[in-house]
């Protein structure tokens, strides 16, 4: 078992009747268990590159090595049953039921009925569709988002180690797309498939990719690196332009709150304490406000010194606590919560609502600065070792 699942070696595609190759000498190692995203401007050859992997498009020259085996010349139908395939148009078969759609590859592989049925139900479950409801529906009786889920289930049916996805969430409204992306990432956490994912949307690439290949015309990689590296150390002007303005903002979407140091020593008080104790706590501390927690340690209100002047019960003093985020949320989510709640800080809670700490704008800015420095260091170090590898 090597660490590389798919090796592309000098893959070239010249379409019949054209002189200029659509893909020229593409060489790339796709690591096992990672999502590699091909991203680049329209017509740069992403789709052509992807479809050469399962030989929907036959390469003009070059080799494809799958899990150590050269598959450039094996029977394409056998090859394709080992590679899941999801296309933008989804391509569910309209004349058969959802269950039969999902069962396509198991049927081709000659699985027995019982095994296939069990697998279909399992998969529908995995992609969040109740098998009892959806198994016997027809594709036209599903929404776009549900169809896309079925498309993913169908591709996963025979548990292929590799998944190819060509703009799988392209034709879906933004809200559903975000949800499908998140679900898919969660799924991938469990499945650990090797995935090649094509998109023309850099934001989607940053979100989905463990590694991103930014492709120029003829599928020439301008940079093949992690999202962090691409955002903090673009290899050249092309990458910089493609990533576009707001690279820093995009970094916010990459970093999860649990990855940074949040403020966990801020001043808290309990609803079980009386007013005077709370007041003394606030006066004695350096903090301008105290976060009041309920019996289960869930934040309820912010109290400041002037709030104690009014004669109100503790749980009605001050301002209600807002801008809650969980540790798996991104810095971008935290910032958004702060903006929505007009709060200077976001409150980090766990899934049960228990207080974990707080996060302010400075925390966010500092962590970005820190990551930028680290990444730049890493980039310089790598450059010294092997310049060709970094710039490619």
């Amino acid at each position, binding site marked *: 078992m090597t660490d590389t699942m798919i090796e592309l070696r000098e893959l070239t595609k010249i379409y019949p009747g054209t002189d200029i190759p659509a893909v020229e000498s593409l060489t790339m190692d796709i690591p096992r268990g990672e999502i590699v995203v091909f991203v680049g401007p329209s017509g740069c050859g992403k789709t052509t590159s992807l479809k050469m992997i399962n030989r929907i498009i036959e390469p003009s020259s070059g080799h494809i090595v799958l899990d150590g085996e050269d598959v450039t010349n094996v029977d394409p139908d056998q090859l*394709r049953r080992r590679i899941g395939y999801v296309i933008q148009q989804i391509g569910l*078969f*309209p004349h058969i*039921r959802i269950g039969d759609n999902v069962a396509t590859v198991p049927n081709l592989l000659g699985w027995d009925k019982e095994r296939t049925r069990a697998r279909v139900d399992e998969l529908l479950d995995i992609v969040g569709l109740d098998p009892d409801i959806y198994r016997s529906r027809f594709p036209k009786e599903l929404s776009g988002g549900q169809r896309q889920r079925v498309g993913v289930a169908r*591709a996963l049916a025979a548990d292929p180690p590799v998944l190819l996805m060509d703009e799988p969430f392209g034709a879906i409204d933004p809200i559903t797309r975000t949800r499908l992306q998140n679900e898919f990432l969660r799924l991938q956490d469990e499945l650990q498939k090797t995935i090649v994912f094509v998109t023309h949307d850099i934001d989607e690439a940053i979100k989905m990719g463990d590694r991103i290949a930014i492709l120029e015309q003829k599928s020439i990689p301008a940079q093949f690196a992690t999202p962090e590296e691409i955002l903090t150390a673009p290899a050249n002007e092309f990458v910089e332009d493609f990533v576009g303005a707001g690279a820093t903002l995009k970094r916010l979407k990459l970093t999860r709150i649990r990855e940074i140091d949040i403020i966990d020593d801020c001043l808290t008080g309990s609803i079980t304490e009386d007013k005077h104790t709370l007041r003394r706590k606030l006066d004695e501390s350096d903090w301008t406000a105290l976060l009041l927690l309920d019996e289960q340690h869930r934040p309820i209100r912010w109290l400041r010194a002037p709030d104690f002047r009014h004669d109100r019960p503790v749980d009605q003093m001050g301002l209600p606590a807002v801008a809650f985020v969980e540790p798996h949320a991104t810095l971008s989510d935290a910032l958004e919560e702060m903006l929505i709640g007009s709060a200077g800080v976001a409150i980090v809670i766990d899934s049960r609502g228990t207080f974990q700490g707080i996060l302010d704008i400075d925390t966010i800015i500092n962590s970005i600065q820190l990551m930028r420095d680290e990444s730049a260091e890493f980039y310089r170090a790598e450059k010294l070792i092997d310049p060709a590898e970094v710039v490619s």
Partner: protein
Amino acid sequence: MPVLVGAVLAVALGILAHRYRPLRTSILNLTSWFLTIPSLAFFALLIPVVGIGDTAPIIAMTFYALLPIVRNTVAGLTSVDQAIVEAAKGMGMGARARLIKIELPNAWPVILAGIRVATLLIIGITAIAALVGGGGLGQEIYSRGINRIPSPGSLEAILGGTGIIVLLAVIVDTIYLGIGRLTIPRGLRD
């Protein structure tokens, strides 16, 4: 009968025409060329070969049935969403399985419409078959009707024969509606 033979032959030709582009125009041209031969002339041409009787009209009608069916088969197969063909291919379905399991079922509504048109066309032509000695309703219109004008009962025979043909067409149409219900997959109906 002619419809059945014509349909099988035509769907096969249609598949061929769809698969091999260079053949497409020649097959379509050939079948439409058959239709331009006036039916009487066509029957007449066949008589020296197969003689007077049922055979000539049946052969001729089979050829007439070809065009609408071939054309609709090609149109039906061409109109199958390329995305589902690619999805099938991408999952490792071979060319033949793709044709049988994916392409034909999805083209079927259009092919069936072609077969229906062919049937109606043939019912119309049947009337003329009588001229060359074939039996059927044409005989009613022709030998007992037109031939005997103005003898009594001739008009009734013409109208009666025509009426029955119209009725037949309506009945056949209804039958096709039923066939459609039974054979078009539910996922394709709207």
